[in-house]
């Protein structure tokens, strides 16, 4: 569960957000949608990195995100795919297991299952620097599931993935939700949003955030998007 209360963010004189609030519940998959440069990544950064916001507060599973222990409650996959390039896939994933204090035996089993699902078993002993964009995306997503964090915050997680991996990711995200957890991801593909998520979070042209239940209808969702966000 994530509660955002009155957060504001400015870059110099440019206001990105002013007094934004929203509440995201467990057992839901939220899609964050907005036009380019409206502040989707800034909002995700504000949730995951308290130092990046100017005012307001964020609670993750009831813990203020300024507290160190809140970091165990979420896993964030940013849009940058340049993370930990100096580690091999295996090293990175084992590092995540230890940082998030997961049971080694159970995590090993999960790792084997996930690497097989994403067809990455053979590449895990190579340096992430040598991976393609899709492979990097897969390894960071595997890390998200391995962390055991209840709240997954994913910035454009479907980018670079092949259709088979998109289907695998959708299945895993649904499993994660059904286990009582929360998924928040940003996306541009309204078709995918309409067919997959439970709720939609729009950032409109006034940079205000509002959320509503997914109508599960592409045309209706597209109309709503063009009326409010463009």
């Amino acid at each position, binding site marked *: 569960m994530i509660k955002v209360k009155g957060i504001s963010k400015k870059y110099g004189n440019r206001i990105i957000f002013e007094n934004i609030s929203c509440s995201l519940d467990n057992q839901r998959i939220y899609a964050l949608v907005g036009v380019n440069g409206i502040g989707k990544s800034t909002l995700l950064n504000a949730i995951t990195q308290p130092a990046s916001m100017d005012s307001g507060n964020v609670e993750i599973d009831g813990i203020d995100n300024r507290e160190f222990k809140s970091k165990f409650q979420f896993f964030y996959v940013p849009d940058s795919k340049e993370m930990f390039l100096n580690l091999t896939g295996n090293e990175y994933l084992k590092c995540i297991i230890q940082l998030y204090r997961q049971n080694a035996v159970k995590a090993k089993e999960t790792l084997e299952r996930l690497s097989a699902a994403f067809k990455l078993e053979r590449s895990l002993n190579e*340096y992430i620097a040598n991976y393609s964009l899709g492979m990097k995306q897969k390894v960071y997503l595997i890390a998200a599931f391995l962390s055991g964090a209840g709240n997954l915050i994913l910035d454009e997680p479907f980018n670079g993935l092949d259709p088979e991996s998109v289907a695998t990711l959708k299945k895993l995200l649904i499993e994660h939700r059904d286990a009582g957890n929360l998924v928040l991801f940003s996306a541009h593909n309204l078709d995918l949003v309409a067919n997959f998520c439970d709720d939609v979070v729009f950032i409109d042209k006034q940079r205000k955030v509002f959320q509503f239940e997914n109508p599960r209808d592409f045309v209706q969702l597209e109309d709503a998007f063009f009326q409010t966000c463009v």
Partner: protein
Amino acid sequence: MKRTLYKAILKSRSAPIITLSLSMIGIYVGYLIWYVLGHYLPGPISVYRVFVSILAIWISTFIAIYKIPDQLFTNRRIKDVLCFPLSSSRLVLLVIGRLACVQLGVTISAFWACFLYATSDWLSTVTIMLFCWIGSCLIDLLVLLISMAIANLLPASSVGYGFIVLQYGAFLLLALSAGNLVSEIFFVPDFLDNLNEAFCPDKWLLIAMLVAALSTLCAYFCVKAGYVRGYLNTQNFQHQKANKAIAPTKIKNPYFLLEWKRVSRNKELIFFSNIKNIITVVVLCGLLMQNFDWIGVSERYTIELFLLVSCCAVNTISSTAYSSDPNKAYISFLPISSHRLFFWKTLQGFFWGEITVLLFWVGATFFHGISALDAFLLLIYGTVMNYGCVWLGVFLDYKMPRSPNSTNELLHGNISKVIVLFASITLTVGEIYFITQIIDYISLLPFAVCVSGCVVAIECVYWLFCRRSFRD
């Protein structure tokens, strides 16, 4: 178009205020040089023009050595414009042209104040200025040709090291030659007069112009023939793929793993840190051995302490612990404690720094014939000071986060390094002063060990109890 291209390939955002400030500093330094020469040194001021021109060429050469390989060969942004219909000679001309403008600024800054003091012989001064500037451009072309040779002749696996040897070797050579020149001008009688006699401005200017014309022609054809190939070869050094199988790591601690991989996967950093430290210590050794009598300190082990402290202070791994960490932006949203990370960064820097300390200690112990007890104390001193300097270097880099503008690791963390060097040398000078002037019944070495131990204890206490300084 030129300006946009320059911005695109060099990410240069030269604000007018910075250009103006640099110009003001240049003008002030130029005036200061001629003021000192005119008021405090013997002889007519015109005899110092050759000396100033050598200094100006020295500064221009220093800029060229750092800028040319950095902007034309190791610069990753050039790759983005190579797909445009843009000739390689135009790219090179853009960089060299801008460099020549900077060097013209250096020459003007160095000489403008000369006209205030020597008003009669201005034509000769202008000729020397022109020679100075054309000489600087000639050096640019020479550096370009050497860089082209390195980029084309060395294999991709070692071309990066070739550039480091060129940059750092040339820097040391320049520093040594400038040091020797200044000392000879001030301490060797008639040296300046002989230099002035040998230098005939008109003739030398003509020679410089002819050589510059020939070099330009040569550089043009070389650039046409091999610049792009050399550039791509250099880029391959930075993006080499490891073909051999990677052994799975046995490191269990995630902090240690992150830090170990940060350093061990960055072979440039290891190369710079250790090779540079060793070269610096060898050069410092030479300079101190030659000139230590002049300082007039007779206390035993003074040179050894100075050298050990210098060894410890110039640790690139510690002074770039945060600024050169490619993962630092991603650490903030992972459950990684900054307090613990600081400790592991310190430990990593300490480990690599200890290699240089041990090398120096082995050399000093076996070639200087030090007694067993003193050798032991020297090792303790080196190890403790190593930790102390590393701690300070990491702390400074943590408190002053800088994103390096240059991909050249040689330039990273230099400010932290200078501060650490200054602090540690000051401490050593204080220890020597205390022993020689205040309590002369204690030996220097045990006293220095105790003081450095206290410094490290203070650092450890600060790390343990001032957790808020390393906020999570």
